[in-house]
């Protein structure tokens, strides 16, 4: 299996600063995006992403190219870190931990509408059970293959599809109140 990151990881393991820079530019936005969708908190997402790369620096010297892709491993690390943070929130019963600040830059009517739509989707995503949310974040937003997503989630592909189907059903139900605005007249498929 061709791993697009294998060469960079090898060079990072040898102390190559330029390779580290390239890997960060390639994956940091994806790690923070994953964190934002799982944690609904930009600051926590950034902290989580930094922790992922701390693991990357630590483990790169030992990485051996083979069956698993490095990016899949990074997603596994990121998800586990997210689960940790979500568990800690529950333990301290922090109702505001997941609040995402509103972007003050958007004030035009179209921007307000976009923000409202985004807020509705985020609320629906946040309401999903963690595993369903993770499955949808990995497959829909991160666009991992089904096999890579299943590995990152530590489930079979069949179990992944079950999580995805249930998650998507729940999202559809949650967004149905705004169906005319969010989902109506969109079209009949994307083939």
């Amino acid at each position, binding site marked *: 299996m061709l791993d697009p990151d294998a060469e960079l990881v090898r060079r990072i393991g040898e102390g190559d600063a330029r390779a580290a*820079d390239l890997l960060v530019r390639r994956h940091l936005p994806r790690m923070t995006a994953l964190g934002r969708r799982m944690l609904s908190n930009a600051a926590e997402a950034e902290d989580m992403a930094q922790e992922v790369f701390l693991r990357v620096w630590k483990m790169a010297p030992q990485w*051996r190219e083979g069956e698993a892709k490095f990016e899949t491993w990074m997603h596994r690390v990121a998800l586990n870190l997210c689960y940790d943070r979500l568990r800690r929130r529950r333990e301290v019963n922090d109702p505001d931990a997941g609040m995402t600040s509103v972007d003050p830059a958007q004030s035009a009517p179209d921007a307000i509408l976009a923000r409202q739509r985004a807020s509705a989707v*985020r609320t629906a995503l946040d309401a999903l059970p963690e595993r369903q949310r993770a499955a949808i974040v990995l497959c829909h937003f991160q666009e991992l293959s089904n096999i890579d997503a299943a590995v990152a989630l530590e489930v079979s592909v069949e179990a992944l599809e079950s999580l995805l189907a249930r998650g998507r059903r729940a999202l559809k139900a949650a967004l149905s109140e705004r169906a005319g605005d969010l989902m109506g007249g969109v079209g009949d498929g994307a083939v």
Partner: protein
Amino acid sequence: MELSDRNSGAMTRDRMEEILAAYGAKPARWPEAERASAQTWAAENAADFAAMAGEAGALDAALAFDVRETADDEALAQRVLATRGDNVVAGDFGRRRAANDWWRPAAALAACAVLGLAIGFTGAPRNDDMAMDLDAAFGAAFEMPAAGFADGAGG
């Protein structure tokens, strides 16, 4: 329920429904092994597919409203790179000077930690940070140090 024989590449209506329910209407998100047969089925059963895919496509479009780009990736990238431990100067991309062999002590310590945790990583408690990342799926992807590290390596 009629299921496709995924190995033979034959797509069925029931499997098409499952794919749409799980992955949505965008073929790029469909399982790679079944994508071609699914697209063929969709093309050969266009009206049926359109009826089936409508809701999936609508949900895909709704999810697209959720845009979460990071506002200041550059600053975060610099903070992340600074954690490598080499001599990084903020804003000094392209002119960074890597410390000589800075990573060797860190790698040795990491290897000790990996081995110390990996010995028990199968079935280790979920709050064991490194063990969570190094289960059977990835354990083979990281080289284990020589046996001399085994005793007293700790974590």
